[in-house]
């Protein structure tokens, strides 16, 4: 029984020239891109000043992808990402104040200081986190898409992941479920060439990651992630298909991260300074700036936008600094739903030393 032919999985081998963004839209998106860049540059500074801790992953260089995709989301669409999340939150409309306060570990942070850099979220804006286990967010995002279908809602989910994450089993299981159940979800593979220090070709036997979609008869395509117009167009088109036809897809965006894997990584053990410098020449921010100039936006206007980003980030730092630290008497807050304290009440006898104060009397779902 020789194998029968099936129609090949659709791919965007060459979709021709991309529709241009309207100048106003492009300007708005540039505002978000520069905000993200300035925000993260400041975050690194604050990290080094020990006002931010934990793991802190920056996306400098990846802004066209982040902002282009998020802008293609409708207000009721949902977003899920890994830990490289600041830019996504800002693009989705979370205030720099709420994100910076989270990085500072303050009560006014978007997760009330409980989550930190990796676990940013903003449920009101449909951003369901901010997750730290590589590829762990994929099954979760798949479940959000399933819930949308069950609830009869015409929305879609974008699930971001890195090039390293495509080698995890969770990728495979999630894509199969999404395709089998026809779920409205776009898996955005942010290919920044490395997972920590491992290049794509050292990690993935099929380095053209978008091609893996075909293993699920799913549409896949690759886009220049530093080309804001192209990213936006692709994301918009795939999201539309997801919403309207419940067809999931893979969108691989080719980009680059300038900084190390996290703030603690110099980022030079596995690549050269030259490589980084070469990529910085093609900085998506510069590219969009030039397009805006071509659109007729003046240098003064552009400088004003940049200055505004500086101001907003400064204000965010001021806000975060002034925000209260979480109350240690609320150590267990959020862990359990209201009413849980009663369920736990009978667990007190013989408790480990300190447990009563630390958990039972510290906001445990009361």
């Amino acid at each position, binding site marked *: 029984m020789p194998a029968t032919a099936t129609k090949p999985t659709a791919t965007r081998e060459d979709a021709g020239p991309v529709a241009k963004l309207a100048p106003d839209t492009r300007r708005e998106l540039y505002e978000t891109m520069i905000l993200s860049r300035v925000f993260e540059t400041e975050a690194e500074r604050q990290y080094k000043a020990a006002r931010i801790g934990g793991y802190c992953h920056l996306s400098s260089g990846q802004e066209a992808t982040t902002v282009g995709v998020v802008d293609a989301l409708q207000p009721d669409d*949902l977003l899920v990402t890994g830990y490289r999340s600041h830019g996504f939150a800002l693009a989705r409309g979370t205030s720099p104040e709420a994100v910076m306060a989270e990085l500072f570990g303050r009560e006014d942070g*978007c997760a*009330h200081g409980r989550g930190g850099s990796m676990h940013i979220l903003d449920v009101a804006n449909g951003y369901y986190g901010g997750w730290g286990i590589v590829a*762990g967010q994929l099954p*979760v995002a798949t*479940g*959000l898409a399933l819930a949308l279908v069950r609830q009869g809602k015409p929305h879609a989910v974008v699930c971001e992941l890195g090039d390293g994450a495509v080698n995890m089993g969770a990728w495979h299981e999630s894509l199969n479920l999404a395709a089998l159940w026809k779920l409205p979800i776009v898996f955005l593979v942010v290919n920044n060439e490395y997972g920590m220090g491992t290049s794509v070709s050292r990690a993935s036997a099929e380095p053209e990651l978008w091609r893996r979609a075909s293993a699920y008869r799913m549409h896949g395509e690759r886009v220049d992630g530093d080309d804001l117009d192209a990213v936006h167009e692709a994301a918009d088109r795939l999201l539309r298909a997801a919403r309207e036809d419940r067809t999931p897809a893979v969108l691989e965006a080719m980009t680059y991260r300038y900084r190390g894997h996290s703030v603690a990584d110099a980022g030079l053990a596995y690549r050269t300074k030259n490589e980084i410098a070469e990529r910085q020449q093609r900085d998506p921010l510069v590219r969009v700036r030039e397009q805006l100039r071509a659109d007729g936006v003046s240098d003064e206007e552009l400088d004003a936008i940049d200055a505004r980003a500086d101001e907003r980030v400064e204000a965010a730092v001021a806000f975060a600094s002034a925000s209260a630290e979480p109350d240690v008497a609320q150590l267990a807050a959020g*862990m359990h739903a209201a009413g849980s304290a009663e*369920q736990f009440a*009978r667990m007190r006898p013989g408790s480990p030393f300190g447990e009563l104060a630390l958990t039972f009397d510290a906001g445990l779902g009361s």
Partner: protein
Amino acid sequence: MSGTDVAGSAALATRGRGNPESEAAAPAEGTEVMTYREALRLALREEMTRDERVFVMGEEVGVFDGAYKVTAGLMDEFGEDRVRDTPIAEEGFVGAGVGAAMLGERPVVEIMTINFLLVAMDQVINHAAKIGAMFGGEVRCPLVIRTPNGAGNQLTAQHSQSFDGWFAGTPGLKVVSPATPADAKGLLKAAIRDDDPVLVIENLPIYKQRGEVPLDPDYVTPIGLAQVLREGSDVTLVTHSYATVRALATAERLQADHGVSAEVVDLRSLRPLDVETVAASVAKTNHAVCVEEGWPSYGVTAELAARIQHACFDDLDAPVERVGMAEVPLPYAKNLELRAMPNDERIAGAVLATLGLARKDR
């Protein structure tokens, strides 16, 4: 893999909610005698009827009627959307349950046996359990995972385990483990109605046990509440899941053969753990034997012994004893399996030892 039930788990408490009636008596008003399996199905049907958001998902839950037939007939009744067959992909569909729950659905995910939860561990421990606290209370995860633990029937090393304590030791989760048909209904319903992720640990040998089950569609067993299933004065047997069935049988035998009066405390919940009820019993009997189906070292009985020695230090006349599975990957041969599994003889031995009625030499 399908429908195999453990043979020979003879004795059982029809006592349901602790009713001491004999098996021959008519069921108490408002109850019906049914199997543990049927009680679970009743709970699912009632909750699916009550709340549109409840849906069932797992391998073979639909067309196949469930590997252990708990969901039999539900696909016909509620359709393919609400009784969703999945590929073999536990990590994927447990995670899908997590995500759906975050958006307000009430997924009830069936894992064929607890052994297969290992491939979905990351979604349970590092996702479901973390959501409430890690996101500062901004979003909740009302997910239910149902799965049987247990051994017997020669299922061998990879299919005969009980990881109950691992989940019970994870802050952010709740873990219940019914031992009677009434609690199978009551705890599953409580889990579905709870706004937090709850693991419902069922048990292979108990599925066909029968008992009285309240028919009230609002009958729930509160989470975090143990139950004294048998009163006694000499020793407290602290148990959950199938160990409860064993303990009840052993208690009868201890009474008959040795005149020992054993109290049986069925934990029902492992997290939260009702130490209060356990401690009150031990304060009365001054002796405790903790029994579990899994390996005792670093297991559930470790926590029980640790709690009891602390809460009842002055009450205890002897060290807390523990009985569980022999600490080996469960072998296939019937004689080895019987030897390795906890049994009435070993439980009785521990009781007699703690009461000073037998050699301590073990």
